[in-house]
């Protein structure tokens, strides 16, 4: 669980995924990924920005 600050300004409660827990640090650049949680429903999550 983490707050991610979007470039547009707001902070949103979300999950950081596809990133080892030990590698998650405050200030780390992340990018959005959409995860399907139901038919026709996807929610935004974030992963470490790939170089």
């Amino acid at each position, binding site marked *: *669980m*983490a707050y991610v*600050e979007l*470039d547009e300004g707001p*902070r949103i*409660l979300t999950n950081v995924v596809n990133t080892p827990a030990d590698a998650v640090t405050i200030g780390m*650049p*992340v990018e959005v990924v959409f995860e399907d949680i139901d038919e026709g429903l996807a*929610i935004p999550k974030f992963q470490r920005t790939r170089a």
Partner: protein
Amino acid sequence: VSLRGKSAVVGVYEHPTRYAPHLTPYQIMAESARGALEDAGLSIGDVDGLCTAGVGPIGVLALANHLNLRPSYLDSTNLGGSSFVAHVAHASAAIAAGLCNTALVLYGSTAASERFAVGTGGGALGDPPDAFEAIYGPTVVGGYAMAAMRHMHEYGTSAEQLAEIAVTTRRHASLNPAAKYHDPITIEDVLASRLVSAPLHLLDCCMISDGGGALVVTSAERARDSKKKPAYVLGAAEAVRHTGIGCEDVLEVAAVQSGPMAMAMAGISHRDIDLRMIYDSFTITVLLTLENLGFCKRGEGGAFVSGGRLAFDGPCPTNTDGGGLSSNHPGMRGIFLVIEAVKQLRGEAGSRQIKKCSVALCHGTGGVISRRHSGATLILGGSRCWTGRTTRSRFHASTRRTVGSGRPARATSSISRSAGRARRPASTRERFVPRASPRRRTTSARAGTARFTRSPSPIRIRPPVSGMNCRT
């Protein structure tokens, strides 16, 4: 109109149980009511106000039924764990307004015997914002852990410093016969306990127990005839902090608003406060609350709590009953903050009694820091007409300045503070010089990516604001 000195807490009772599978919350409340009324020298027939929270959908009605009461003032305000601190203020307002004369504030819970998951539960109650959060699987402890992580990142606060709070609180519990845990613990013990949600270890977290308690609040006039020394309500305020529609600052807690308001009503400053009863759902809760109440600056909490400074015989006595960390925590522990404050003001705290206790500050936190939480501050005093050390010290300071102390003019406030100390040796307990304030790592914005929250500018204690509290 102010609540200051209009009412008093004249009866308190902490139910001794910590595990009671044979009792219902209503039975715990009834037994507690009997205890507090006896403590006050009053009878159930004197009660015409009733406050509770945390039982049933409209449990206050069932409670009135259970006690066979027909009160003229009912309050089931639920702010989470801080509710009962707020109830004292609400009852005081009702008494001042003539809605009732004597109110019972009751709490009972069997969270432990029901195996109710408080901290590891999601804290999703079905309120509208939960829909945007529950999908990410938040937990209560996770919210507090996020704040702790942020504090460590921003100010270099260490796990050892957080552990200090647990260690001191356990020491207090060892002096409280009713407390659940008595064996002393060390910082190493805290760090060696398992991680519940990084960086919070098991011993950074409050327990889940059964329990309950009761308070009797009555008018100042009536309090004069009470059996024991009244604890007068000098000031009170409530506040809420939430995500602010995308502007969450996880290190700002509601105390930043309710604290100064309650202290202004009471007409006191920090150095007037002899005892702090601070909700300790987690060690980080105490640290953040102390900072936001203004006992130290934001970021200095780690140094402030270190070296046993919060001990009952230390410079800043805090949570002398052993707190939720070591005495009891049936889910909403606000009522115990008030009970211990009253005992200390009366001089009834036994081997954990602080030397001199004239003014106590209670601050309850309810809900989840990092998401939505309430804060309720209550200031109690042993005297109804607390003139305060502030006034005297100011007067003294101006005298000193007139005769010329050789200090620069801009140091006025520090002169008045030191003059206050000089007059009253006991207040040297407030002296606090932070050793180091390691402010570090500012994050940089990167184009084309989102990033974790950046630290906002250092906080200042500010008056309550209307409307949005958004700093972007």
